[in-house]
């Protein structure tokens, strides 16, 4: 299978994730869209690792997995904390950090 097809799939998935982050109001769905973008980048890294015949790209994907896991734990804890005090997960309603 030619590599550009994998890259095209990755680009479309990244665009979908970016659209989800920009458009949706639920903080949970915004987080899932971020996961979508991270996975699109992972697919690109694995494709280029395959093209170059080097395993370095796959090691990078491993680190992305680690950072994504830590990010999800902290982010979901923040969402739960906000929900406890505000009773909402709407990112439009949350203006406490607005300057």
């Amino acid at each position, binding site marked *: *299978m*030619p*590599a*550009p*097809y*994998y890259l095209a*799939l990755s*680009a*479309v*998935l990244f*665009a*979908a*994730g970016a*659209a989800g982050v*920009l*458009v*949706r*109001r*639920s903080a*949970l*769905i915004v*987080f*899932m*869209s971020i*996961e*979508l973008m991270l*996975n699109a980048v*992972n*697919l690109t890294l*694995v*494709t280029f690792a*395959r*093209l170059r*015949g080097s*395993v*370095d790209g*796959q*090691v990078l994907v*491993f*680190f992305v*997995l*680690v*950072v*994504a*896991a*830590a990010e*999800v*734990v*902290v982010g*979901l*804890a*923040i969402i*739960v904390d906000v*929900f*406890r*005090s505000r009773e*909402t*997960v*709407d990112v439009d*309603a949350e203006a406490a950090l607005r300057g």
Partner: protein
Amino acid sequence: MDVVLFGITAVCALAGGAGVILSRRPVHSALGLLLVLLSLAVDYLLLGAQFIAAAQVIIYAGAIVVLFVFIIMLLSPGGSDSPASGLKGGALAGPVAAPFVAALCALLAAGLVALVSRASPVPKAALPAAFGTVQDVGRSLFGRYLLPFEAASLVLLAGMIGGVALGRRLGPRT
């Protein structure tokens, strides 16, 4: 064989991605995300990344999606009538945003056409037999990338402590 598998996984991944951003209930979004993750794991196998495919299923599909579903169950942010299920205020609306979105979509489509039109097969002969196995990735991980690997353990520890610290209830509700 590769073409058929890639076609199936691509369709599944795109459907899952659309499900993540379009569904009105967060649980359906989580299921769409699961579909995307499993499809991408198959793609990783097609690209010779066995270790990454296994890690994808275990970490993403096994741990992160379960965490998402758990939090959705905990918060139960409501169905289609809750305000958080809608779009952000002013997103995709108005005379400014619509042409901008159309231009971005056209740019993406043009880039995709240019990318796919110069497609050439992935060279297969250049790869060693053990490419992407646990031994191969592990040798790289504990050799050249030993210091980042240890730093990753610190990141995970920081995430764990942060999760516990944020999840702990600090006194009575304000």
